[in-house]
């Protein structure tokens, strides 16, 4: 019961999901629409609630035990509380019953998203540029032909996207400028290798999914009882 019921449900819903692409009847399409856009979305809300509960419990425990960096757990909990309060009470676009404007100063959840979350996330991604450049400086060495190809193609692609690339190769005939070679690398060898890798990955994913659907792969059921 503890294994067979979930497994049976999974196979049943798997077949149901599979048929979505093959049964164009309006009744079936309407059924799948309701299932996808209402039923499964409502179920997923509880997964989010569980995740948020885990996050809160983790930080509360860290504060209680005075674990490493426990003081910053207050930052997460307080910002979570404030953002949730403003978001729920103030409405997504600031049309809720909680006032989200003082004079010309707006603090609705969309403004918080664009003024707090967007700078934070884009700066974090931008930070990676420095680490990638530093890692490349330390590890990129043209020790053999293959390493040389890796280094060379990375260099040409980077050069092709900055004005200095045009400045250095501008005297060459058309088709041999850094930008042209960079485009060629992206469109020919890069496309070929990426396509092969993507095909391999997709076939691997398909194999795993068929194993899950047929009940061969059961690790998602977790261990124990």
């Amino acid at each position, binding site marked *: 019961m503890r294994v067979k019921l979930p497994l049976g449900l*999974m196979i049943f819903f798997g077949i149901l999901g599979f048929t979505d692409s093959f049964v164009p009847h309006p009744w079936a399409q309407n059924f799948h629409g309701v299932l996808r856009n209402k039923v499964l979305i*409502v179920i997923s809300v509880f997964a989010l609630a569980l995740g948020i509960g885990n996050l809160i419990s983790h930080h509360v425990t860290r504060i209680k035990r005075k674990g490493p960096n426990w003081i910053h757990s207050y930052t997460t909990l307080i910002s979570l509380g404030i953002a949730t309060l403003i978001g729920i009470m103030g409405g997504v676009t600031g049309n809720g019953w909680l006032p989200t404007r003082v004079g010309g100063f707006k603090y609705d959840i969309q403004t918080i998203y664009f003024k707090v979350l967007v700078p934070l996330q884009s700066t974090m991604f931008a930070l990676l540029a420095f680490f990638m450049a530093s890692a490349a400086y330390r590890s990129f060495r043209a020790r053999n032909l293959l390493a040389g190809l890796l280094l060379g193609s990375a260099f040409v692609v980077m050069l092709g996207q900055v004005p200095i690339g045009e400045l250095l190769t501008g005297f060459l005939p058309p088709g041999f400028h850094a930008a042209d070679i960079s485009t060629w690398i992206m469109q020919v060898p890069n496309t070929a290798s990426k396509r092969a890798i993507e095909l391999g990955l997709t076939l691997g994913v398909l194999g795993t999914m068929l194993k899950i659907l047929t009940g061969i792969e059961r690790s998602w059921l977790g261990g124990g*009882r």
Partner: protein
Amino acid sequence: MRGNVRYLAWAGVVVALGILFYSTRSTISHDPWTWVGVFLTVAVFSFLYRENRIYRFAEHLVVGVANGYSISFTVHRVIVPYVIKPLSAGFKALAADGPSLKLLDPNSSANFIILVPLAIGLLYFARFIPKYAWLVRIPMAIFMGYYTGQTVPAAFTGVVFPQLKATLVTQASFGGDPWLGVWKVLVLVGVLTTLTYFFFSREHKGVLKWSAKTGIIYVMVGFGASFGFTVMARISLAIGRFYFLFRDWLGILH
């Protein structure tokens, strides 16, 4: 000695910021949100020096605000329209007209059918009751099963077939610019040889060896190109952040 250098560096940063502030005091932004953005940008960039409290503060702030945003978005975009509205309308209809089959129609604005996914979703919390912890597998099974079933045909129609179609070389490939046809042949060779390189069911000997060797050349050029492309994408993000500092905040750039 090292400590002194650090203090001198910090003093230099403060003096530089002071000069910058003085020289740009007329153009500097008066928008409080811009100042918040500047503080957060500098807080994250401070990690380049080393891990510090300000960076950790920013890191924890991302987690809190991002989750708060997703909670409020879920409440307004899912819970209110798909749960609260149909149920409250359903109760009103029940009080006014009595029970009817229409209340079980999921497409109706007033329906009780949404109680089914609510009950299934609640099973996620069964994990906190050891005796019934296994019930958490039910919503997981429904979710995994449905989306796994949907992904199988989608993977064929969305990835496998279009990629294979794009790889094919036909007479039409040489119709316009003949060089384009040559590049398509090179792509075809690259796809086949790269696939050979990742084919481990037979030892790479003879033809397979040369095919795999050609494949690894494509893979290395491809990885290098992807690396260069990713670095440039990150650098453009970094330029964007500096642009924000020098244009939106200080008003130096226009």
